[in-house]
């Protein structure tokens, strides 16, 4: 694809390895693990290694070059860490506004709320749900990231007690939410080492909040709903006060305020990425759970539905953290997958290596199936074959990374390709039968495959989740 569509009027952040190389020691000392300084520079530009991996650069001699490089590589949106330990969350660190311009770093963190007036059981259950939520997806485990603790009581003692409970039961990073600095500090005292995100500094409490953020070394949210001038003014004030790690909340409005939400998020991110506006160069927090304020007796499912779609809009439009109330799998699953999709590196192909894959310990009577080399298709089929615990061969046909139905429609998956793959894979020497199970969605190719390859075709299921059943019923009667 040509990059003519990638270049906007306001140039994208383009940095060549040469720019970095010029500032490196250029001794090819290999201490970084790379063959030479140019290879290291290339990785640095691709954000695959931090410049701190170059030991000489950190010496006094190269101090100036190091600072220059730091500035040169500075992301348009500051990277901020929340929490400590193995579940530490990093947000922001965005280099670009649009993912095709480079790639997005630090996927949107998902926080689930608890309050200081919930029952002990409810709190523990929500913590457990947040901690143990997991979904396996193309070789990755998708998870939830944080607990947001809200004070609905406005009572410091109650807030302190709930923060204590959360700290005791999980090491997930926290967001402490109260606009009352006294309440917030009561909670913060029991979590002083945990580096929670504080929510939030407003036009009324910013000074006390700034003191808390500095005293406990915590990142601080700036909250100025629907008022970007105020949001920037507060940010400027807090930076001058000495608080460096800020997160911006322009307000998550739904319903008739939805246009404001998207406009505010978009304007802030554009100002940061395209205009170099330092006061906008911080991560954004979205709060889809604001829909629960306006429930008005509608069923819970409808609030969950609205919260879910608001979350989707925010994941696509630049939110670096979102706070959610629903812990239902049906409402969370589309969004953890959407987050994974949007944060997938578009520079990397999602195709897997074509060729013959072996499952279990197949012999000369084991079934032979084929699928495409689109990574998602491959991983899905592979996991279904694994779960069936059968011994089998899976032939991965090169469809240029396209899924079965699209590949058939787009002529990327043809009988010729399948026949070719059968020949070159060496499968004909591994099994004594000549029966090929093909994806149900490629059924229209079956006649041609038989003609060209000489193999007998068995049309398999349209969805690979039916492979175990198919093998049990069809393969056994076949052999």
């Amino acid at each position, binding site marked *: 694809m040509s990059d003519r569509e990638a270049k906007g009027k306001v140039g994208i952040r383009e940095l060549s390895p040469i720019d970095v190389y010029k500032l490196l020691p250029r001794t090819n000392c290999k201490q970084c693990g790379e063959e030479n300084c140019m290879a290291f520079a290339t990785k640095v530009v691709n954000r695959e290694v931090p410049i701190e991996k170059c030991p000489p650069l950190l010496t006094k001699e190269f101090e100036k070059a190091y600072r220059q490089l730091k500035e040169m590589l500075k992301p348009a949106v500051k990277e901020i860490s929340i929490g400590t330990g193995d579940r530490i969350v990093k947000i922001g660190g965005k280099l670009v506004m649009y993912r095709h311009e480079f790639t997005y770093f630090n996927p949107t963190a998902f926080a689930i709320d608890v309050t200081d007036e919930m029952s002990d059981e409810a709190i523990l259950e929500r913590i457990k749900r947040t901690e143990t939520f997991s979904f396996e997806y193309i070789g990755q485990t998708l998870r939830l990231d944080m607990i947001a603790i809200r004070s609905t009581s406005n009572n410091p003692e109650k807030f302190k007690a709930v923060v204590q409970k959360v700290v005791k039961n999980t090491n997930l990073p926290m967001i402490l939410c109260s606009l009352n600095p006294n309440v917030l500090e009561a909670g913060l005292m029991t979590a002083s080492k945990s580096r929670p995100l504080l929510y939030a500094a407003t036009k009324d409490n910013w000074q006390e909040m700034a003191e808390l953020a500095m005293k406990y070394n915590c990142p601080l949210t700036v909250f100025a709903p629907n008022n970007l001038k105020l949001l920037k003014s507060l940010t400027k004030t807090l930076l001058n006060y000495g608080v460096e790690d800020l997160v911006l909340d322009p307000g998550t409005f739904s319903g008739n305020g939805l246009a404001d939400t998207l406009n505010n998020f978009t304007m802030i991110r554009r100002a940061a990425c395209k205009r170099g506006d330092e006061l906008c160069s911080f991560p954004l927090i979205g709060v889809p759970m604001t829909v629960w304020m306006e429930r008005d007796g509608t069923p819970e499912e409808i609030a969950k539905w609205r919260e879910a779609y608001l979350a989707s809009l925010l994941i696509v439009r630049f939110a670096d953290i979102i706070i959610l109330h629903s812990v239902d799998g049906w409402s969370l699953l589309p969004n953890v997958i959407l987050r994974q999709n949007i944060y997938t590196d578009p520079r990397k192909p999602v195709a897997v290596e074509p060729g013959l894959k072996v499952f279990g310990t197949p012999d000369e009577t084991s079934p032979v199936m084929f699928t495409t080399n689109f990574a998602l298709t491959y991983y899905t089929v592979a996991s279904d074959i694994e779960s069936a615990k059968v011994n089998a061969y899976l032939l991965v046909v090169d469809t240029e990374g396209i899924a079965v139905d*699209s590949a058939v429609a787009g002529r990327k998956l043809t009988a010729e390709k399948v026949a070719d793959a059968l020949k070159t894979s060496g499968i004909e020497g591994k099994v004594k039968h000549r029966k090929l199970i093909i994806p149900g969605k490629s059924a229209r190719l079956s006649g041609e495959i038989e003609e060209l390859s000489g193999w007998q075709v068995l049309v398999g299921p349209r969805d690979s989740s039916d492979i175990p059943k198919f093998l049990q019923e069809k393969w056994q009667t076949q052999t």
Partner: protein
Amino acid sequence: MKKLEKENRNLGEKKQEENVFGLKLSPRLMELLAKLQEIELEDFEMNVGDLEIWLQPGAVATPTFVLPKVAAPVKAKPAEILEAEFIPPVETYPGKVVEVKLGATKTEGGTRGKMHIIGGETSPAFYTFERPVVHSPVITLDVFDMEVPLAKAVKMHVKDVIGNPAAWAKLAVEKFGADMITIHLISIDPLVKDASPRDAVKTVEEVAQAVDVPLVIGGCGDPVKDADVFEAIAETFAGERFLMSSVTRDMDVERCAKFIKKYRHVALSFTPMDLNLARELNRRLYDFLPKEDIVMDLTTAALGYGLDYAFTNMERARLAALMGDPELAHPMSSGTTNAWAAREAWLKMAPEWEPRELRGPLWEVVTALTLLLAGVDLFMMMHPAAVKTLKDITSQLLGEGSGNADRLVEWVSTKI
């Protein structure tokens, strides 16, 4: 051998059926889902101002923007708020997406009761701080000319009209709020029923009689058969500006473009996720068709199954169009129904992910919204709740925005 293959295919389909329709929905959920639909659909028939009764109709509090001033740097800890300015980062773009008319009323040479204009954008999708949206996105609902495997969550809404495209179209327009109808001519596939162009014309005739919205004519994917069928339909319904879905690179592009032009319809230029191929096909169409008669489909992949490609491809295409690339300056259509190709949309999963009757339509909503933000103008959709949700959201996004800041602040301490 052939028989065996057929048997296998039948078996495969049957198993799929079982899989799709296996679970019984609990009565409570059924009620809720029905309610969701009812509430929402009722609302939709009210005027736009009443659209979302659940909203707090707040005071308008749009941000005020002041001209920039240079503020002096402050060294000591500030004792009061330091003023900063915010200027909306508004851009202007050299390019503009062409406007395409779908459907033709009597005065325009057709028989439709309404028509829609899509395209015309001069800003990225819903950058309404920059410029208002020119034309609201349009939703066309799928109608099939024969029985096809449908997810249970979808089938429960259309079970009475399957096999009766005219009744299905009527239901989709009157109950589900479809702006347009896509009649999918599955039966013309030589590998399915190989129905004749004449049969297809008859089916389209029935649908066109039943509803007065513009139609999308959906082919079967066979490049030769589709051209034959499209031509017969184009001629019979001359002047209707139906959208022919779709013209692909492996069809006789010249022939298709010529009959689409001659009989005054619109081409859907379909390419598989590659902007260079999209440009190439559009260039071939330009030899015979004006730009105003071309909508493009850059391929929609489902959430979880390549949505990132579809999203980025469309976002790039739209930004390119705005930056002045004329070959991509067409309104975009999305086969959002593809969301249902994701097994997570219809499969019965472990109890913690259920009910799929909500998960499924939400899958379609999330797929649609993602692409809405990339710039899609025409959505081909399936589930009534997904359609209603997309309509609500787009109408909210078209508005001025009236986020109530004073009320929102309370979210922190609100008991749920």
